[in-house]
């Protein structure tokens, strides 16, 4: 009756195998992968939103955490995935890269053009100063270099 399970297994050689009982030692990622994501879906009386679970495990970034917690840990793939997020359209990455490149070009132009316009005396200092301000305020007023010119 209260016989431990392993000895029950022993009496069923067809199913017993050397590695049986990996249940306790199995990798949590593997277990969650199966327990959360595979298996039959039947409706229970208390329904939790299974879609939520799927959303979080859909690419097996296997950390089931709230969105904020996950973000804290650097997991925000759903924000960039066009299949999951409406405002992460495919062009976003390109636009982002474009913006970054433009900024860089503007910065470079700035660094080169200004010393020649304002005379050689300031040459050694000016570009350095420019570069550092451009870097630190890049996100805020990224257009400044261009409007100055």
């Amino acid at each position, binding site marked *: *009756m*209260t*016989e*431990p*399970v392993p000895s*029950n*297994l022993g009496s*069923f050689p*067809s*199913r*017993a*195998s050397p*590695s*049986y*009982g*990996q*249940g*306790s030692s*199995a*990798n*949590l*990622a*593997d*277990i*969650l*992968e*199966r*327990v*959360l*994501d*595979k*298996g*039959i*879906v*039947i*409706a*229970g*009386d*208390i*329904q*939790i*939103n*299974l879609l*939520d*679970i*799927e959303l979080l495990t*859909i*690419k*097996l*970034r*296997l*950390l*089931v*955490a*709230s969105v904020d*917690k996950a973000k804290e*840990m650097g*997991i925000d793939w759903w924000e960039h995935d066009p299949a999951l997020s409406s405002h992460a359209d495919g062009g976003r990455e390109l636009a982002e890269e474009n913006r970054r490149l433009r900024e860089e070009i503007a910065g470079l132009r700035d660094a080169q053009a200004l010393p020649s316009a304002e005379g050689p005396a300031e040459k050694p200092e000016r570009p350095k100063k420019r570069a550092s301000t451009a870097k630190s305020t890049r996100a805020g007023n990224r257009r400044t270099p261009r409007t100055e010119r």
Partner: protein
Amino acid sequence: MTATVSYLYGVSAVPGGSYDVVAALRGIADAPVRLVPDEDANLAAIVSSVPADDFDEAPLAAHLEDLDWLEAVARAHHRVVDAMAARTTVLPLRLATIYRDDDRVRAMIRAGHRAFAQRLAHLAGHMEWGVKVYFDPPSAPTASTAAAPAAELSPGRAYLRSRHQERDSRQDAYRAAEQAARRVEAAARTQAVEHVRHRLQQGPLSHGSGENIVNNAYLVADGQAEDFRDAVQLAAEQSETIRVEITGPWAPYSFVSRQNEPGEMSEEAIT
């Protein structure tokens, strides 16, 4: 007002002795596990009582975000399914399938009886095996290979060249690993009845070194498990850049519905 609700682990065929197996099991929160059979008692839901307070909709949703809680429940869920699967064929349910009481569970089994029986018959005598292939990138080429041409080149070009070589050798290694992975897949398929490709594992919970390039599950007849493992291992040994991890046997989580399509059975099963 009931203090407990019925938590379902799976639906299984009920061979003799199942009740003894189940009696020895502890489920979520260490609660005893029981079988809730249908009328002709050849099909049963594997059930245990869980506190309603923990498994009502709102607390449950909150709990699912708590990795420690989730791990405990997932392991308990899996332990029950696993122990039962060692004995008989089980259709594992997804985590957190809750019914108000056993009567509602009985109604669900009655309603889904045909679908369950069909699938159980199909899966009988088979278990699931997981095969994961990892790509272990070779270490970067040593300085000696890059140093020879560097002498006559300017430092910049030498750097670019060595970067180039590094990239090429990594790409070659990756290609070789992909080929090896395909050989492993082919070898595994010959011994398996069905197979599905899972998403590759990444992230903090996936363990082991290297990049996961294959994450498959195979449905293998019980008698063929040894051959299956041997075939996979043999195929893996032919390559140095890949590492293979075989897990199992699992209850057939990945094969409970045809085409592995979640929700396929649900329509038939819902009252």
